[in-house]
């Protein structure tokens, strides 16, 4: 009879859940999402992380890089002249003239850097960039030298390239339909693809711009040493470094004291963790793990709190029958056990389903990561820590809190359950509320009173709404983020191609307008200086009001708005430009509007005079027609860049719409569950209002009006919170990687999201309204009596 008795209590709990099947189904969905998101991300990132760490270890990934100037400093120029009999101003031009002499300067620079830091190893990293075509479409390629000790290449598939062969990245090959054995035409030479390669310092294939990272539009490549040396493009170079000894103190000290700045050719030191191309993966792994944990815990917590509310409601509704059963000698454990078991099994089923699907989805999700990141795939295996966080932790929480709640309710004596005492708590709260809101209308006070009776429920409601609005606004703020970078910039210019000479140009100005570009430090901040001339037509320079700023370049520097935001410089500041040991003080005279990264504009003649003692000097040409690859060391075609951005755009938008959808779904579930619960909680007052002659509309306003007002208030409150946190996020990214993510919360976006949010609220409250309409007076009063 005992087991039969317990079975009945199971039956009771199960039937209760069946009665509220939609609420429980939605709760199940929340738990499923929680388990799914966490497992999918944790397992894929975990596999990815394990494989990457192994890969970085084997290939000896750099710990930092020293970026150095292409311009030769005075000592180097003298040495080049004395040793090689060559007059050269830049490393690129020297490479063209004499490769041995070039390598001599490379080694000399390496020795000078090593002399500064005793416990590091360095290796020169040489990169040759070019544009090439596959079936008539242009793509970018960066060929890297085959490193000996640091950043060693890793052949994923196939063979390392022999003579006349090349290894490229698998992502690019897959996207372009290329296989091992196929050939590529590069600058009049033909290379057969020998295999697919990865480089540990290029987890993201960043070649031209930090935001251009689509691995299907550009590729890294490896040639054998002889072919690399013969390949007729002047390389850019930097030094990859690792801390060789166990003690990295001298480097750390150097960073702190800034002593490394004393070498004239030195531009900057970037630690891997701050380097997007090699270190963004670390932030990605940490960020993904943190996101997975916070998101799934948040969803699980929402689900858990709502389950507990439903549970409390159930027990309240059956308090008297339970009191009778206790009077008849049924022990607490017989009443608590079925709730724990059924709720536990129910939660476990959904969490397990989420975990299983998440585990199944982890490998394709890893592939999705690998669409961006050039890293080896890892095996998705069973990870106890994932299982623990995804399943056991929520289960322990669910069961212990459920047990606590049940124990608390059932510890009452039978007589207190059968004849519950009136609590003065709600009355006291209402009194306080009445005083606080004495000046407001009766309707408003009623709305507040209904909310105040269930502050826990209201807190969950607010949490759900704020989270949904925040996620929605974040997604909208990311909309068009790519367009606000390169496309916006190029839309303001008439540039079709940019041609770069090796060293300084000589007579390439027949193809377009002369420009002098040079990277340098401005008050210790890295900037891209662009020397323009007054009268330039292809690269106009305007302020926010549309005023022409080209004429102002004679007076000083014009900085881009993003450089201003990044550094805090403003109009009127006098700053120091520094490159290869030369320094120049200049005033910032204005700010140009289009987003353009860390660009600073200067009069070309003044820049040429300062850098090369030649006011006619230029090293690039901006053209309004497509430039030939043959005439320049490298050419950047704006159309190709924009196409590249567009390809990222689709992926980005899919991501944004997924988050908006998820935000609205979570909001919808929360609004649905809590408004339905509110109506159910107030059947008696609801019936009373009906008796008093209130119509459905009035009742709806009294019961749900408070929630609707809260929607508006918290929607509006979330906007400044979101804007402030996005600003913090931008600053954090800027400090980490020295570029600004142009997140923007536009009124239009707020409007669109408000409309979507309104729609979601209307859908969410539909069921609650229907219940108000449907409720028969008799039923409500009977429920109250019961």
């Amino acid at each position, binding site marked *: *009879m*005992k087991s*039969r*008795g*317990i079975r*009945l*209590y199971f*039956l*009771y709990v199960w*039937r*209760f859940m069946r*009665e509220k099947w939609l609420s429980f189904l939605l709760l199940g969905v929340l738990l499923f999402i929680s388990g799914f998101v966490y497992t999918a991300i944790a397992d894929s990132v975990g596999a990815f992380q394990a494989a990457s760490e192994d890969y970085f270890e084997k290939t000896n990934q750099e710990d930092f890089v020293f970026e150095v100037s292409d311009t030769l400093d005075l000592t180097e120029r003298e040495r080049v002249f004395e040793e090689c009999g060559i007059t050269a101003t830049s490393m690129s031009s020297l490479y063209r003239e004499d490769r041995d002499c070039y390598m001599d300067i490379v080694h000399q620079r390496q020795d000078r850097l090593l002399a500064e830091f005793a416990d590091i190893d360095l290796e020169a990293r040489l990169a040759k960039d070019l544009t090439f075509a596959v079936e008539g479409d242009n793509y970018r390629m960066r060929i890297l030298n085959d490193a000996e000790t640091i950043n060693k290449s890793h052949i994923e598939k196939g063979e390392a390239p022999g003579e006349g062969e090349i290894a490229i990245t698998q992502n690019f090959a897959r996207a372009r339909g290329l296989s091992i054995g196929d050939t590529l035409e590069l600058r009049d030479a033909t290379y057969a693809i020998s295999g697919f390669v990865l480089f540990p310092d290029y987890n993201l294939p960043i070649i031209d711009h930090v935001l251009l990272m689509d691995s299907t539009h550009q590729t890294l490549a490896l040639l054998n040493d002889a072919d690399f040396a013969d390949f007729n493009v002047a390389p850019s170079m930097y030094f990859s470094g690792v801390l060789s000894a166990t003690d990295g103190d001298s480097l750390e000290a150097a960073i702190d004291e800034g002593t490394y700045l004393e070498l004239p050719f030195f531009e900057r030191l970037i630690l891997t963790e701050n380097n997007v191309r090699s270190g963004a993966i670390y932030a990605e792994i940490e960020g993904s793990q943190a996101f997975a944990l916070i998101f799934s815990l948040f969803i699980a917590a929402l689900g858990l709190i709502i389950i507990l509310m439903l549970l409390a409601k159930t027990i309240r509704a*059956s308090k*008297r*029958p339970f*009191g*009778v*059963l*206790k*009077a*008849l*000698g*049924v*022990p607490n454990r*017989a009443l608590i056990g079925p709730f724990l078991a059924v709720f536990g099994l129910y939660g476990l089923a959904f969490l397990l389903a989420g975990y299983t699907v998440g585990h199944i989805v982890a490998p394709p999700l890893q592939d999705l990561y690998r669409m961006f990141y050039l890293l080896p795939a890892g095996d998705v295996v069973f990870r106890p820590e994932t299982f623990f966080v995804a399943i056991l932790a929520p289960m322990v929480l669910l069961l212990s809190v459920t047990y606590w709640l049940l124990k608390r309710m059932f510890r009452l*004596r*039978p*007589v207190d359950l*059968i004849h519950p*005492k009136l609590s003065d708590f709600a009355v006291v709260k209402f009194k306080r509320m009445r005083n606080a809101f004495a000046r407001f209308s009766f309707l408003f006070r009623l709305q507040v009173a209904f909310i105040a009776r269930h502050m826990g429920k209201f807190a969950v409601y607010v949490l759900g709404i704020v989270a949904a609005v925040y996620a929605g606004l974040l997604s909208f703020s990311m909309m068009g983020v790519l367009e606000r970078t390169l496309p916006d910039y190029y839309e303001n210019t008439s540039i079709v191609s940019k041609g770069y000479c090796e060293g300084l140009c000589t007579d390439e100005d027949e193809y377009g307008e002369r420009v002098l570009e040079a990277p340098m430090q401005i008050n210790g901040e890295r900037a891209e200086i662009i020397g323009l001339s007054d009268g330039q037509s292809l690269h106009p320079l305007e302020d926010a009001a549309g005023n022409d700023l080209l004429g102002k370049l004679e007076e000083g520097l014009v900085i881009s708005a993003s450089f201003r935001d990044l550094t805090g410089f403003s109009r009127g500041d006098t700053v120091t430009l520094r490159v290869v040991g030369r320094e120049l003080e200049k005033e910032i005279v204005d700010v140009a509007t289009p987003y353009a990264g860390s660009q600073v504009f200067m009069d070309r003649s003044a820049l040429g005079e300062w850098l090369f003692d030649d006011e006619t000097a230029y090293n690039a040409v901006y053209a309004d027609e497509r430039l030939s690859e043959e005439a320049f060391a490298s050419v950047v075609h704006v159309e190709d860049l924009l196409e590249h951005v567009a390809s990222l755009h689709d992926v980005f938008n899919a991501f944004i719409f997924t988050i908006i959808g998820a935000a609205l779904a979570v909001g919808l579930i929360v609004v649905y569950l809590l408004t339905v619960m509110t109506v159910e909680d107030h059947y008696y007052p609801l019936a009373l209002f009906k008796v008093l002659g209130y119509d459905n509309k009035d009742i709806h306003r009294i019961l749900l009006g408070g929630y609707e007002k809260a929607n508006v208030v918290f929607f509006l409150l979330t906007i400044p919170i979101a804007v402030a946190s996005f600003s913090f996020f931008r600053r954090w990214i800027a400090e980490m990687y020295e570029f600004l993510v142009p997140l923007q919360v536009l009124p239009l976006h707020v409007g669109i999201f408000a409309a979507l949010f309104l729609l979601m609220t209307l859908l969410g409250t539909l069921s609650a309204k229907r219940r108000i309409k449907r409720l028969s007076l008799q039923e409500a009063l009977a429920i109250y*009596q*019961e």
Partner: protein
Amino acid sequence: MSIALSSVWKVFTETKVKVEALKGVDLRIESGEFVVVLGPSGSGKSTLLNVTGGLDGVTEGEIRIADDVITAMSEKELMRFRRNRLGFVFQQYHLLSTLNVGENVETGAYGVKDSYPYSEVLRMVGLDGYEKKYPFELSGGEQQRVSIARALVKKPKILFCDEPTGALDEKTGKAILSLLKKLHEELSMTVVLVTHNASIAQIADRIIRMNSGYIVEDQRNEQKVSPDEIAWH
């Protein structure tokens, strides 16, 4: 199974006002008696039922049922005692709405080795064939019969009834009283019925009147009538 209360006090102190619901009550109910405790609202009759049935503790005094001192029992012991010996019927039926009649009756037999099959007990209360019906399909009288069946299924030695007809009309109320009388006779149980309705008292073997926490009168009912004969107020 006899019941003996000696110098029982029950004082409620949960609120700011101290309420003395029972003031040194002494009482003995013999095994097999049908006793009605009669009194106006606030007289202490329901408190008397609650403490005697072990649903609530006493402030002072001793309650003995047969040889067991229930006032000395722990919560767990009390719970087991109630499970094996006592049955309760209340004014409201307090049935679990999602369980059917048979299942509701069975909930009363939890942990009891020797219980009636629920069909038999339903037959006893006149609800033969109602097993599969749900509470919302029953009238008030029928629901009260189910709650009586739930109390009886475990073959209690004492049945406590707190205003069992309070929510019923005359006809149904009389039917429930007839049922209680019939069961009392057939099962030889002790029945303690609490009510404010003086006419109901006429069916009892013994009438105990209460007022302000005291037993003001305790007498055998020499003019016992059947439930059908009472004048319903």
